[in-house]
């Protein structure tokens, strides 16, 4: 018996209804105590691999074809029930809603230990510690359905930690957390790994984080194991990873683009000390701060806006905001800071408790969602909320038909957005069977077809790979160029830095900061208080120079080769 806690021997998996194999001959051994990062683009087979580890495939999820064996703690997953693996391996999935099946927080955490037949006082102890680890202490008796998305995701993690598994699998399990929230979860995991011998397997698109935590990374692409090695080894292939649609740590990308020799640095401090002295930094362009101009046409004017859901807790506490026509604005802030409440007030889904919102001069609080819909398009985080018909084309036409727009105009607009979003070839497919990135695009298309002057994107990129995220953002940039006002809510700071022209930081229902990303991301200390971490390239440039560059390319453009 070697130290291998997980062994995959030539594993081939083909899902039902699929022509291609999802995994093609994977061989993998994971040692006890290892921290393994699994990365790869959408459809690479990462989630399939995770669901193999406790026997969900083939015992619960039936597949068309399966070859090879998976041996976890010496047990072949074909020969044991999933519940037999539960004490040893815990998996947290991305969709928190389907991982919560109890009505209050403490009994949710108790569910796993209850199933394992633990004594009541032991369960009480585990509830206490798991909630502490995930910063949920004090919410023991809260109804689970009343929690925010971020809290629900923490709860899903707490519930698995309460089972104290020897192997912890986090499959995109922190996707809805703010940057510091993610950091905290991984910090807890690290601490637990030190206290007891735990093995960690994580799937995450945030490769900065993976690089920091993992001691080994495997890269999957189209079901094949492409690279396997230490973070330094794997991130030597920066160009290949970027062309797969992944986003390696920005400092590694920088060193690679400067033609330095691998291994590339992966952390800010490492990059600062290794950065070649021959380069001099030039000043980046002064940010355009047109948005403060009071002579421009305002699209949205918000005055003293307050909102409460339950009459006790105020989600918004006196917001004053003027957004000019043609702004490209990011709303950022920690989970529960009021971002979504503010955005939903603008399109009328929420009627604010107090205050005034003017959309192109008209009082929005007195207009119906339908009336506002003509001016403000809203793309939800979950595309399924918007998709109702059985073909992409019908979906885009639906809103236009409701507005009684003439047929030829409908056709014109449909073909325009189909082209814009590059979804012409799937125009006649059923949205239900598309992957999430494409469903998100269809949802965006159906909103854009209505040609609203203001477009709000509410975390449109959650669960998408950086490549897919870039596509959505390029699109947002294009419609902004057409003169539309774009507001995006997101936890992805790099896209805020690269794409938006103005950043509003919300904290506890108030506006904490408002300014150009170049200014905002220079305030590391203040941002940290609102659980936001600037992009790695900003942190690097602030540490290495007196400037703040917003992207790798911008930084390189402003480098001068000295003597």
């Amino acid at each position, binding site marked *: 018996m070697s130290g291998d806690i997980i062994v995959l021997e030539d594993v081939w998996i083909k899902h039902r209804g699929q022509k291609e194999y999802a995994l093609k001959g994977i061989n993998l051994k994971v040692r006890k105590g290892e921290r393994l990062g699994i990365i790869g683009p959408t459809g690479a087979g990462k989630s399939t691999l995770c669901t193999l580890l406790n026997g969900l495939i083939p015992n619960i999820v039936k597949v068309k074809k399966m070859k090879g064996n998976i041996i976890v703690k010496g047990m072949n997953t074909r020969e044991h029930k999933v519940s037999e693996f539960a004490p040893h391996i815990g998996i947290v999935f991305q969709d928190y809603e*389907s991982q919560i099946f109890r*009505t209050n927080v403490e*009994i949710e955490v108790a569910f*796993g230990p209850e*199933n394992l037949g*633990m004594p009541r006082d032991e369960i009480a102890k585990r509830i206490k510690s798991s909630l502490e680890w995930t910063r949920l202490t004090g919410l023991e008796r809260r109804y689970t*359905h009343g929690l925010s998305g971020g809290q629900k995701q923490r709860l899903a993690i707490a519930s698995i930690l309460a089972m104290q598994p020897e192997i912890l699998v986090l499959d995109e399990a922190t996707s809805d957390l703010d940057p510091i929230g993610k950091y905290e979860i991984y910090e807890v995991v690290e601490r637990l790994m030190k206290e007891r011998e735990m093995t960690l397997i994580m799937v995450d698109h945030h490769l900065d984080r993976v690089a920091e935590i993992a001691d080994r990374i495997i890269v999957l692409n189209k079901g094949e194991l492409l690279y396997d090695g230490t973070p330094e080894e794997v991130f030597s292939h920066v160009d290949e990873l970027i062309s797969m649609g992944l986003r390696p740590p920005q400092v590694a990308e920088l060193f690679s683009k400067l033609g330095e020799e691998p291994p590339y640095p992966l952390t800010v401090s490492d990059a600062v000390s290794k950065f070649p002295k021959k380069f001099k930094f030039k000043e980046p362009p002064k940010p355009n701060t047109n948005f403060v101009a009071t002579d421009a046409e305002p699209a949205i004017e918000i005055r003293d806006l307050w909102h409460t859901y339950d009459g006790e807790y105020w989600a918004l506490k006196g917001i004053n905001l003027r957004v000019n026509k043609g702004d490209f604005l990011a709303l950022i802030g920690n989970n529960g800071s009021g971002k979504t409440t503010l955005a939903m007030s603008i399109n009328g*889904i929420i009627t604010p408790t107090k205050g005034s919102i003017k959309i192109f001069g008209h009082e929005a609080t007195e207009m119906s969602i339908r009336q506002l819909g003509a001016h403000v398009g809203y793309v939800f985080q979950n595309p399924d909320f918007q*998709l109702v018909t059985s073909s992409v084309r019908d979906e885009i036409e639906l809103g236009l038909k409701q507005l009684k727009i003439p047929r030829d105009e409908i056709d014109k607009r449909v073909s325009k957005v189909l082209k814009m979003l590059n979804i012409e070839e799937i125009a006649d497919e059923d949205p239900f069977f598309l992957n999430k990135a494409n469903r998100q695009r269809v949802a965006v298309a*159906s909103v854009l077809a209505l040609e609203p002057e203001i477009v709000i994107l509410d975390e449109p990129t959650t669960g998408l790979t950086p490549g897919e995220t870039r596509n959505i953002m390029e699109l947002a940039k294009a419609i902004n160029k057409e003169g539309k006002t774009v507001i995006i809510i997101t936890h992805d700071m790099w896209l805020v830095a690269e794409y938006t022209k103005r950043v509003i930081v919300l904290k506890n229902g108030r506006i904490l900061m408002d300014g150009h990303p170049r200014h905002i991301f220079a305030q590391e200390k203040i941002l940290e208080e609102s659980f936001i971490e600037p992009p790695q390239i900003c942190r690097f440039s602030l540490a290495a120079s007196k400037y703040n560059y917003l992207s790798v390319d911008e930084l390189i453009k402003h480098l001068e080769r000295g003597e």
Partner: protein
Amino acid sequence: MVQFTLYVEKNTFLHKLDPRAKLIWLLSVWIWAMVFNNPIWVFFIFLISIAFGLWSRSLGNFGFAIYGLISLFIMSALMWPFFRPGFTVIYVLYNPLGGTIPLHYEGVLYGLAIAMRLFAMIFASLIFFATTRIEDLEVALTKMNLPYGLVFGISTIFRFIPTMYGEAQLISSAQEARGVDLTQGSLIDKAKNAAPMIAPLFVTTLRRAGELIMAVESRGFLAREKRTSFYEVNFGVKDAVFVILTLMLLSFFVWLRLQGYGLVNPNYL
């Protein structure tokens, strides 16, 4: 988002009662309401269930049901007289298809009684769910030797009602923002417009169901012969006393009925 909950944690006698005792009480109230068909007597039973609602301080949660209850009341008060004739004709309606339909005094009262019955029964059920945490009910039902898999399935449905309710609201907002009008038009138009709401709800639920099974299994579902329950449910003295009083009242009401009290039409239940 507006949240929808029936169960609210409170510290009343009814909240602290063993779910099994409350189940017996619930069944008894149903029977109490069934034994009489004189509207005044049934109204008295309805008042008893209201009293329980006041006692458990749970009446405030039923606001959402009020329109449904009122339309149910009107429907049954209007319909039943035609199906349960009596003895004293008070009015004769002309049937457009030919002939006449007599309306009886006892029939009208019977209709009122049935409407009142439904009120009492629904209120008692609402009180039951407003005072019983679903996990406690789960423990109680397993103690009654029902298989845990089945009990868990039922309680999971309850867990997702508020979630689906919240999502339905979001979806209808999303549709309205695209110009789909959900409030105007005839009943048929409204039904037609409901389709764009139900489809996404169905899709979301369907996607979730598959993932839910994976999550439940991963948490060791049915891993051991015997599972612990973190919340204790014990049938104590107060539960026994409560059940005995309930059953005594039940026997008394049945005895009254057998004596011929509380009836407008002894031919029907």
